[in-house]
């Protein structure tokens, strides 16, 4: 066995991870589906972004180049379902390209257009024409939750709860993979999904998807015993990934060598979430530190609007986001936690769940789930390294 045979596929990091500004256009609050775990509590068919608002947002951002010093930019389009607004998006992207060029903007040739779609309209002529026009600057993720059973449990058509959307999405997967072979799919796990995790990930691998980015929801949805079930599913998944040799070419973000370690309170004190470093704009032309602070994403709090396309950004409202660190917002149990690394949080959910109107109170609804993940993750790496070691030994003996 040579060095090159020891191959473990990494979870794919996104383009210009950490150095790109993400600017999100909430182009519509409408969607064909009504997913049961969807955090967007205020979805509706009325709030569609107008061209005027989109253009004013772009003009504001490009007029204030000094306020956006990041080397690169990701223009992200979300909804609802963004491809419902493909005409608008096409016009926005054309305008951005022309403006970046004519202004000699530092983002010219360092930009991406990014989409997270339910995949239903992926094959349509308009979407395909858009893809072909922009393919070298595109990243598109299709959300598919796993097997038909698992996917259809949550991702159902709006107004027809018994009709799942699996077949409508999966028919577009080959075309998508042909156009974006390196793309990952995003899977979100809620309480009811736990028993299907293993089969779902393997199913996605079977569809030819090489990277599965999978997360448990941050909301407080967990029932007693969910952590044990979850741990069990991840152990079974670990066995199958290792015994089946999938680790060489397929990645699952649940397993990572960097999670489950204590964190230094000073050196490892960064905020987890990127809220505030991103910028989102909605149909009304309001700016948010991230889409999770727009009214349609919040259950129990007022939106946090940090400006609008007419008045610009109120930098004082951004200061709390940019001053956030891990320790200041964490409860004592997290400060001294032995498995803190990789335990994530979402600033929007922190805000939504906080006892006062603050982003400085970390929600820890995922605490037991993270600990379960750490157990399974430790098991995964111990097993994988032992296997690689044994494989190496037997090759040596044969030699």
């Amino acid at each position, binding site marked *: 066995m040579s060095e090159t045979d020891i191959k473990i596929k990494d979870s794919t990091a996104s383009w210009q991870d950490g150095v790109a500004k993400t600017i999100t256009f909430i182009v519509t609050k409408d969607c064909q589906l009504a997913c049961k775990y969807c955090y967007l509590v205020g979805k509706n068919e009325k709030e569609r972004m107008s061209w005027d608002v989109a253009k004013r947002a772009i003009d504001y951002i490009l007029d204030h180049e000094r306020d956006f010093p990041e080397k690169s930019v990701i223009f992200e389009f979300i909804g609802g379902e963004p491809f419902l607004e493909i005409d608008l998006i096409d016009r926005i992207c054309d305008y951005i390209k022309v403006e970046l060029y004519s202004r000699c903007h530092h983002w010219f040739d360092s930009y991406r257009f990014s989409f997270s779609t339910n995949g239903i309209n992926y094959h349509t002529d308009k979407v395909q024409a858009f893809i072909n026009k922009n393919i070298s600057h595109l990243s598109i993720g299709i959300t598919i939750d796993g097997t038909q059973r698992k996917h259809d449990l949550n991702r159902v058509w709006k107004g027809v709860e018994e009709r799942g959307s699996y077949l409508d999405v999966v028919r577009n997967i080959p075309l998508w993979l042909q156009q974006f072979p390196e793309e990952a799919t995003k899977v979100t796990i809620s309480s009811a999904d736990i028993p299907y995790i293993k089969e779902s990930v393997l199913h996605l691998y079977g569809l030819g998807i090489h990277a599965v980015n999978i997360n448990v929801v941050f909301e407080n949805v967990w029932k007693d015993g969910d952590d044990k079930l979850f741990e069990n599913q991840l152990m079974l998944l670990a066995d199958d990934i290792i015994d089946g040799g999938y680790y060489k070419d397929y990645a699952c973000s649940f397993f990572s060598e960097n999670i489950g370690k204590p964190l230094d309170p000073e050196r490892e004190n960064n905020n987890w979430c990127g809220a505030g470093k991103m910028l989102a704009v909605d149909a009304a032309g309001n700016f948010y530190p991230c889409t999770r602070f727009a009214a349609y994403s919040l259950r129990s709090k007022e939106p946090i609007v940090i400006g609008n396309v007419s008045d610009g950004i109120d930098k004082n409202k951004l200061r*709390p986001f940019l001053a*956030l660190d891990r320790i200041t917002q964490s409860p004592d149990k997290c400060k001294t936690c032995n498995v803190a690394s990789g335990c994530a949080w979402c600033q929007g959910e922190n805000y939504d769940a906080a006892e006062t109107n603050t982003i400085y109170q970390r929600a820890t609804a995922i605490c037991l789930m993270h600990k379960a993940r750490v157990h399974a993750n430790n098991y995964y790496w111990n097993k994988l390294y032992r296997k690689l070691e044994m494989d190496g030994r037997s090759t040596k003996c044969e030699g």
Partner: protein
Amino acid sequence: MLQYLVILLDDTSVSFCHYDVTKPERRLISLDDLRQGIRFGMMENLMIQFIYPDYALPQEYLDVIDTIDHSNIKPLSALDCETDIVVVDGWKYNVAKLNGAVVVLRTSWNQLSKNHNNLKGLLNVVMRLSVVITDVERMTASDHEQYKAVLELLGKDVESICLSGKSPQFNLLTDRLMLTEMNNCGAGDMTITLAPNGKFYICPAFYYENEADSVGDLNNGLNIKNRQLYSLDHAPICRKCDAWQCRRCVWLNRKTTLEVNIPSREQCVAAHLERNTSRQLMLSLRSKGTFLPDIEEIKEIDYLDPFEIIRQ
């Protein structure tokens, strides 16, 4: 740890800080709530500060107030020998009447920029002067330029008073000289306010802004949610800062940044202009003789907003 209890005796009690009194009708705290408030203060070992309206209180109130050691904060119109701190709202006052007094002077920035020449006369006679710029959060970059120039002139005034052998106390320029650590308003952390409705508030500003924003009442005690956010160690910008004289107003923080623990740029820049002028004053006084030899020199810094250093 809580140390002070502010009791607003009436809805029209004078403002001694950034907020405006937005309730024009008199509403005296009930005698029973006053008694209970004092009892609470005694049980929690708090120093009580009573805030007075501009009219005379009934004798029975004065009798109850006198059951505890306390300090009295009164408007200029109610100034008497029982006053510990007198609040002057604006620039109409008689200097002679303020001789030896501890004075809070509330002013807009615009008025301060026009009237600052009058402060030397005050500083010469009062025991202590605190100037509160009531619209500090609305100062622009050019206001800050001008504020710097005003502070420099005031620094010269303070210096000449010092050289005449007096020890003026002036919040904007001498507090920083004496301090060795943060000394801020402390609302929600060291100080709590009892309003005339019998409920507790972080400070009077929170009461006047929204009565529903209470943090407990006399029957059930205090219930300050996320209380840690009022303390310095949970203020990620301020804990890195050495403008120790800054008021660090948590109400202005919430108003401008939506978080009680995060200040606006405007509050920080104003406080740093004061800090830097205090530094010049210290250097200048030291160049002329021994001045506060035990106090460390105020360092030279190249920022006016500590947010910039935490971003680095």
